[in-house]
């Protein structure tokens, strides 16, 4: 698995150790080429690939956005949060409420909706999620990392309760369907307008694919730039030592609140995309499991690395879908209701195990693995860093794990 993903990291992950001095001549040419190649592949994929994969792709793009957001919070600034599902829910619900139609919900309460254009819904979803994050941040900013982890757990349960209770807006227990996305009259649905590109009909899946690609890319670039700028470095200092950060003039409380704001806005966007990809929202989709999935993504990808988060998102999100697709081929895995292990269950086993193994043996995750390979390729023999301490030569944006157990690097 990892062998295949490494070129991917290289291509997308422009978060190489910063200074131009460290970049070899060969690599400086290779990187942009790979990036362009990957982009081209992603752009022409809808012309060749079936609808199933495109739908999976859109779900993955949504997850990438969310994972990058969570990584800013957990990986970069070291605040463990299990509340990501809550902020996703805020985004998804706001979108469906703002852009959804009013109407009856079976025999019971009537649904309400503002029927505004979906773009407005998207923006409002992102903003409201950010607002929710900001409202929670006074709690967050006061708590030490681990207290925050458990406190944020509470937010998920409160969120699910709200989703169940607030029927006119959320549709209650059964949820409600999410409105189709459209942009200035161009709908991301199956028709209206009919669209053919090179003879391939561009239906909902194809259109959403491009939407997802654009949003995920934007999220990626924004996060990367954020990390390389002043606030990003401040956040990393914050993670390593709050005392040191405040001595250096970083306003600890304010930065903690801001990173919560940004991270939950990411989650809000991811929530909107989630609603679009499923086509509906329901309380049970936004439970603790979702938060844990996002945590799994960033741990697998490598804490603190933007590209790693994207990679982890691809892995965790597509795993159950791929299992489902190939249920009859894979051993042990089976379609639902046929004995065997259901696809979703198998995937859960796998990423649970992956979390444990990653933390035990490769705390840098996939990004760390790729980084190590790259180093070894460049200076054979001296690939591994000798000591456990993240030395001063670590450039802040390098994908070196934020969380590294204090021990030797003999765990190759």
């Amino acid at each position, binding site marked *: 698995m990892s062998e295949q993903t490494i070129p991917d990291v290289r291509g997308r992950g422009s978060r190489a150790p910063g200074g131009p001095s460290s970049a070899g001549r060969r690599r400086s040419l290779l990187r942009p080429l790979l990036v362009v190649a990957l982009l081209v592949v992603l752009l022409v994929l809808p012309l060749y690939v079936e609808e199933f994969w495109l739908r999976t792709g859109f779900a993955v793009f949504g997850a990438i956005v969310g994972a990058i957001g969570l990584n800013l919070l957990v990986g970069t600034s*070291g605040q463990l949060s299990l509340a990501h599902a809550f902020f996703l829910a805020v985004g998804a619900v706001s979108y469906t409420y703002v852009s959804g139609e009013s109407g009856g919900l079976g025999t019971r309460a009537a649904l309400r909706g503002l029927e505004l254009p979906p773009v407005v819904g998207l923006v409002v979803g992102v903003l409201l999620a950010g607002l929710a994050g900001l409202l929670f941040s006074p709690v967050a900013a006061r708590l*030490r990392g681990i*207290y925050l982890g*458990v406190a944020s757990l509470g937010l998920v349960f409160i969120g699910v*309760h709200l989703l169940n*209770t607030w029927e006119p807006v959320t549709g209650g227990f059964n949820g409600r369907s999410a409105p189709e996305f459209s942009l200035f009259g161009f709908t991301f649905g199956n028709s209206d307008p009919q669209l053919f590109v090179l003879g391939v009909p561009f239906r909902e899946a194809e259109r959403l694919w491009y939407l997802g690609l654009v949003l995920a890319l934007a999220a990626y670039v924004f996060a990367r730039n954020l990390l390389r700028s002043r606030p990003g470095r401040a956040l990393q200092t914050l993670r390593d030592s709050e005392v040191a950060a405040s001595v250096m003039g970083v306003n600890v409380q304010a930065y903690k609140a801001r990173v919560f704001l940004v991270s939950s806005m990411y989650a809000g966007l991811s929530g909107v995309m989630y609603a679009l990809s499923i086509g509906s929202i329901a309380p049970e989709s936004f439970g603790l499991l979702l938060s844990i999935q996002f945590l799994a993504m960033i741990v697998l990808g490598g804490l603190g690395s933007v590209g790693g988060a994207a990679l982890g998102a691809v892995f965790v999100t597509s795993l159950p879908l791929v299992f489902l697709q190939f249920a009859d081929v894979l051993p042990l895995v089976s379609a639902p209701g046929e004995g065997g292990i259901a696809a979703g269950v198998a995937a859960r086993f796998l990423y649970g195990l992956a979390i*444990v193994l990653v933390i035990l043996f490769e705390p840098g995750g996939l990004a760390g693995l790729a980084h190590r390979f790259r180093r070894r390729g460049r200076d054979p023999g001296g690939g591994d860093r000798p000591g456990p301490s993240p030395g001063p030569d670590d450039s802040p944006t390098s994908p070196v794990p934020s969380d590294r157990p204090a021990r030797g690097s003999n765990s190759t």
Partner: protein
Amino acid sequence: MTQFLSLLLNGISLGAIYALIALGFVIIFKASEVVSFTQGSLLLLGAYTIARLSGPYGFLVAALAGILVTALAALLIERLVINRLRGAPVISLAIVTIGVDIILLTELIRRIGPDILNVPHPWGGDSVRIGGVGISQNRLIAMLVAGVLIVVFFLAFKYSSWGVAMRASAEDGEAAALMGIRQGRVSALAWVVAGVLAAVAALFLVGAPTPGVSAAVYTVALRAFPAAILGGLDSTGGALVGGLLIGIAEALAAGYQEQLSFLGRGFGEVVPYVVMIIVLLVRPSGLFGTKELTRV
């Protein structure tokens, strides 16, 4: 008034169970600086074992086996995973326990499926009345057992050599290690104790008025987390107070549901988290947790 007293009593009994779970949580944190998210699935493991074995072997054997299995599982987790990561950042440790939790929980839920496994407690679903206030026998016994266990625990914590060793290593791990206290052993023992406490809590948590062992027991167990946080992660007394507080709040919210209907059905299940967030707003390290002071 009777209703209030009855809710209060039921709340205290529920709180006693929460306190057991929260205590395990706190011990682990004190001994190994790990915030163990495995507590919920360990509890479910105990409940599952008890439910499965009580058919063929009878309740008593099953209960003992459940406690043993859970303690063993906790020990295994500590030896295989946590012990290898000593000195790792707290967040990594917390995340790794989440990973273990996913594996264990997925397997248990797969085995339990949609069923509700019945545990044949010898005291059944009867309830007793104490001065006009009713409480299920199961909860009454739970309260007594939890009380005894907690007292024993606090005595051991204070006087036994294990307790002294643990308090010492919680105070200053490095110094304790230099004085010849084996950190690994202290931590392993803490996990075993936490496993036992979780299994005992499971034993009573799946009795009346709860229907039996189902996947939902896990979410009930999760409500002990607020209890531990509320009291302060590193305070054993805090876990006790936090557990009782959460139990009472939950019972009251569930009991006065009609008056609280504007908050939605099933609000009782969220109350622990609401209480926790409010307390944390005022006291960020919990009620009895040590405040972290930073000096430069």
